[in-house]
């Protein structure tokens, strides 16, 4: 009977695990919904600020902000990497690392050095072990409700480096929330900002600027990049939750399958022991 008892305790422990994974799945599902709402809440700001920048860039053509000028020679680039703080979310972080490393090795082949700004502790744990990259800033433990204020410092380090000429380009490695089943890792260029050819120059009007066009543009560009990174972080939270939801769902399913198999094994063991006992009794009776 000892075999059957062992199987029974095993089933009980797997059932406990299944309870946990089920709970995590449901928590992740509800957190994902909230994260998606926050994601859509970032859009009006980003699109509005973008349209003002485009207008400013085309209106005040004599002033070229350094963020909008491509450098002829690229020696060192910066990359902001947005990762999660916690694991148990499938291949989310691993896929992002793969995409980032691909870009990094492509850059390194051209003898371009790389400065990293890592958001999230999973990214830090990974990139501190990678040689040849230089982590210049880091922020983690942002929680599920991220605030722009938490990211300002990290972004400023990169922007200051860009202004100072330490880095010549800036990239953002992020997870894109395609739908609740799919996330896509991507590395997108941030700086220099691509100059958008606006054909709307026909109607020639301009704003009044206070204090000056330059100062307004400075403030706008910094905020624009912050909002880009911020929405990437919020999107990453949504990705993390949906990836966790799927990972936990498959873990729960696997646990269910395992329990079924073990239950079968347990029943067989129980049957076998009953049959054995019966045959012993019968054998004993025949001997008497």
């Amino acid at each position, binding site marked *: 009977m000892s075999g059957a008892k062992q199987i029974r305790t095993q089933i009980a422990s797997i059932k406990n695990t299944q309870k946990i994974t089920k709970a995590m799945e449901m928590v992740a599902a509800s957190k994902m919904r909230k994260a998606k709402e926050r994601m859509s809440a970032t859009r009006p700001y980003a699109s509005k600020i973008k349209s003002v920048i485009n207008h400013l860039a085309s209106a005040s053509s004599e002033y070229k902000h350094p963020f909008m000028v491509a450098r002829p020679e690229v020696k060192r680039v910066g990359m902001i990497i947005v990762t999660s703080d916690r694991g148990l979310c499938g291949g989310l972080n691993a896929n992002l690392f793969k995409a980032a490393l691909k870009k990094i090795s492509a850059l390194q082949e051209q003898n371009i050095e790389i400065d990293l700004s890592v958001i999230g502790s999973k990214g830090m744990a990974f990139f501190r072990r990678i040689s040849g990259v230089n982590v210049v800033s*880091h922020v983690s433990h942002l929680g599920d409700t991220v605030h722009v204020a938490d990211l300002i410092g990290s972004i400023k380090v990169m922007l200051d480096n860009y202004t100072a000429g330490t880095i010549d380009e800036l990239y953002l490695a992020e997870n894109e929330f395609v739908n609740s089943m799919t996330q896509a890792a991507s590395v997108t260029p941030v700086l220099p900002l691509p100059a958008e050819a606006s054909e709307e120059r026909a109607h020639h009007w301009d704003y009044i600027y*206070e204090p000056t066009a330059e*100062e307004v543009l400075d403030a706008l560009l910094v*905020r624009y990049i912050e909002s880009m990174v911020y929405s990437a972080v919020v999107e990453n939270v949504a990705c993390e939750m949906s990836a966790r939801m799927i990972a936990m769902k498959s873990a729960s399913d696997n646990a269910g399958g395992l329990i079924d198999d073990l239950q079968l094994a347990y029943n067989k063991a129980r049957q076998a022991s009953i049959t054995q006992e019966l045959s012993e009794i019968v054998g004993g009776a025949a001997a008497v």
Partner: protein
Amino acid sequence: MTIQLEIVSAESEIFSGAVNAVIAPAIMGDVGIYPKHTPLVTQLKPGEVKIEIDGEEDQYIFVSGGLLEVQPDVVTVLSDTAIRAEDLDENLALEAQSKAKEALSEKAGEIDSARALAELAEATARLRLIEKMRKA
């Protein structure tokens, strides 16, 4: 006559609707925007945005700085979510840098988290002691 007002921050949409006038704390002094105002872009300092709607009480929304954009029929306030100042931002940047250095110099993760917990326990004990001494 009304003008469309949108107040948005990077984190959320704060206000959207038709208003009669907006008074905003622009960096060179408060500005009042009425319909058909000339296009204007200005930085805002921390303060209250006053919204006037006919037949309703005035609304006040606090903004911690940001930008105001005026087009003939729409006014947009791009509100900051935190008070911004060069030295404050500088501190945040230094903090992010030191965190990177700290994380890079860490050896084994588990041992360190154990040490951090021990330090935390010590710090809270100290705080409790200080509180007790204050009360006494």
